[in-house]
């Protein structure tokens, strides 16, 4: 039996015809298994959705109560039989509720990892390694130039800048789901206790994180704050807001951006970022290659990102590897724009 007989990669995502479902489909389908709530993986309108409770909650927050016909929650480690196929969800360490989905049939196990990172994150369950025959991996940062380093050092960089420029408002662009809350949690871990200001687009999701028992300290909304409040304060906003009219309310705003892309200077400069913070919710090159090796998989399917480099790396190590041409997955830091800007009037 070939892996493709269980999971078939199509332009709209991987499809399991035996089990009658798609994983993270980019178009509307009858039955969808969703790895995590980022909008390029979790779309509204499917007939039925199977995902973790947090992913379902987050989808509801973003899309409203009627985001799917039916929903079913599944816990980490829990298995479900779907027409002769067994699926099990395991933590992916990407954002709150994110999962890798293991699909098994006839003794063959394929793991669709969605987006993942194998480093500590105080806001979500840690990545669990699942041994498998075929590993489907993302390739967002699949070039050896991407090594994310220690996020604590990046947080220190931000705090030093706040100390050096106490009259300037520090605006940190961070994706509203996951990155923003992780950033706040990291600031608190570094001992920063001052109130942190939030762009309106982050309010609901951040409240949800707090409600799930993740301590984030004192948070305030930018709406209603004065210029004097914002001077020397840290404000978290969607990346797209950094260049928006919205920034005009801040005293001498200093633009920071928390993303794995910030490792490359040109990327930071193109976006007018003065303080790049290399903090990523995706595995870096070392993380990707170490994880691939540790799964024991003999065959690797590579999606969204720098597929060429990762396929080359796998092939050089005698692994069978192929890129999947799935249309529609992006990088959340870049797809944030559309959602972020309209939510708060300027």
């Amino acid at each position, binding site marked *: 039996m070939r892996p493709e007989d269980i999971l078939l990669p199509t332009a709209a995502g991987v499809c399991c015809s035996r089990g009658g479902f798609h994983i993270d489909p980019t178009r509307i389908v009858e039955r969808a298994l969703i790895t995590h709530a980022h909008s390029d993986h979790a779309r509204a309108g499917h007939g039925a959705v199977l995902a973790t409770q947090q992913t379902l909650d987050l989808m509801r927050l973003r899309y409203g109560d009627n985001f799917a016909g039916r929903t079913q929650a599944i816990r980490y480690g829990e298995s479900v039989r779907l027409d002769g196929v067994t699926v099990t969800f395991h933590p992916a360490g990407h954002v709150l509720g994110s999962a890798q989905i293991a699909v098994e049939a006839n003794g063959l196990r394929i793991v669709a990892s969605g987006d993942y990172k194998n480093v500590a994150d105080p806001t979500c369950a840690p990545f669990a390694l699942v041994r498998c025959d075929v590993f489907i991996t993302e390739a967002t940062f699949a070039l050896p*130039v991407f*090594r994310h*380093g220690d996020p604590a050092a990046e947080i220190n960089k931000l705090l030093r800048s706040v100390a*050096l420029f106490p009259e300037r408002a520090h605006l940190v662009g961070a994706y509203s789901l996951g990155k923003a809350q992780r950033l706040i949690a990291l600031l608190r871990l570094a001992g920063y206790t001052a109130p942190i200001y939030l762009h309106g687009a982050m309010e609901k999701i951040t409240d949800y994180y707090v409600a799930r028992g993740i301590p984030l300290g004192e948070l305030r909304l930018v709406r209603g704050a004065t210029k004097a409040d914002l001077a020397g304060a840290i404000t978290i906003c969607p990346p797209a807001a950094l260049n928006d009219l919205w920034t005009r309310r801040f005293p001498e705003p200093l633009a920071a951006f928390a993303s794995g892309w910030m490792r490359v*200077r040109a990327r930071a400069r*193109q976006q007018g970022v003065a303080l790049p913070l290399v903090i990523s919710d995706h595995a870096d090159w070392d993380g990707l290659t170490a994880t691939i090796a540790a799964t024991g998989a003999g065959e690797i399917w590579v999606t969204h990102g720098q597929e060429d480099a990762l396929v080359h790396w796998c092939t050089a190590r005698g692994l069978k590897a192929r890129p999947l041409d799935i249309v529609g997955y992006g990088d959340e830091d870049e797809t944030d724009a559309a959602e972020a800007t309209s939510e708060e009037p300027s």
Partner: protein
Amino acid sequence: MNRFAELLDCLAYEPARNAKLRLITDYFRSAGDPERGWALAALTGSLSFPHAKAGLIRSLIAERADPVLFELSYDYVGDLSETVALMWPVPSAPAGGGGNISLTAVIETLSSLGKAQLPQQLARWLDALDETGRWALIKLVTGGLRVGVSARLAKAAVAALGDKDPHDIELLWPGLAPPYRELFAWLEGRGGKPVTADVAPFRPPMLAHALEEADLAQLTAADFMAEWKWDGIRVQAVAARGSHGMIARLYSRTGEEISKGFPDLLEALHLPGAIDGELLIMREHRVQSFNVLQQRLNRKAVTPKLLAEFPAHLRAYDLLADDTEDLRDYSFAERRKRLEDFVARLNDERVDLSPLVRFSTWDELFAARKNPASAGAGEDAAAVEGVMLKRRDALYLPGRPKGPWWKWKRDPFVIDAVLMYAQRGHGKRSSYYSDYTFGVWTNGKSGDELVPVGKAYFGFTDEELLQIDRFVRRNTVDRFGPVREVVHEPDQGLVLEVAFEGLQRSTRHKSGLAMRFPRINRLRWDKPPGEADRLERLETMIARIEQGRLHEHAS
């Protein structure tokens, strides 16, 4: 090395001048001697390591990385130093101690190291440093930090450390050498002011105020002398007798030494003295356009070919010192006589006098300014930017004192163009669309179409910036990264009145021409884009300029 690398890293991202200053001053305050002195040397471009080339860095990474992965990475990152810094494999047993490698140690080691030992030493350092440290090291040794800091800015930052005027540093600078211990001691109040032993120092220049025609009513023509304002680079050429023969130096208006780029001109400075003048390119006794001068300025290597194709020339305005005699307390009229005598004694074809413009009434001067060709500038009229008015009794005062010197620029060229693309600005303007590409009409394949003729990012008021920004956001028809294409149809769009100082043919632009110093003069909300100017009008302007019949349009 870590603190220095971190400084460079922050500077590379910070667009605002004042924030850059703060970063550097903060570094100077916290880093000790001699570390900060070497950093100052690096920032002012006072260091060079001839053996470290980009090729060496390439071969180091080739020994350590998969070539396919390197090429894919380099292609993505687009900068060799950065690619190598990021993908340098960290040894499994890290050498450690990266934080202990000081900039001082790097510089001292490099200055004593032979060429053959260099690759190994560099590799050892790269093994021990982190990404930022590796990037900074590679930038440092291969030359050209390119972090948007001029030598002048670095000196201003060091001045701020002791609350001094940057100018004081500029004056002391030629007498100082890295790691500048005595300079830091003085700035921190631990030592006296370093004495400049320099015999060929830079002297702070005197600058002019712009003249409005209304000012003329208050001024008496007989009190003034006038000369052309040439469109080149204001420089100071200084020569002095040193212990090993004649020392000759060329300084920019801001006091940066630019001697290295102009060996041809230095040869001409064989009499001790200090000339204030304009750097020009002369071919067959004709002053070339600023565009031509720029081609020489932009070159890194000064080759014999460059010297032959772009011969440098000094047109003298003023004499600040004759041998060791300081002339700055003499009147302009007296200095002018001394200058005429000095240039005659120098007797070198590379240095000549900027001629005086004869006039007895303001009307005569007005006419000369409007038509320099017929008022003595002759064939060089195209390189005249306007006239300078100098009081006969004016002493040479540093800075920009109001009254003794005036610059009276020619009226600019003006056209009506249509806004085509807008891009967000930097720093304070980063949320505003403040860089504008504008075009004029021409015959296209399917009727009239707009062809871009230039780009402008200033000239408008803050209020106008808000208006244009709003217009751009509401009338975007397409986006290309940070650039927005705005509507530009005959009956829909925004007409900009663009003023500019000159016009040159250019093969780099689709329109075939390039504007000098374009800026937004006025917003023409009242004018439909269809009535904006056509390319033919600019072509007529160029033809007139080339025939020396300047500014006939500016009636």
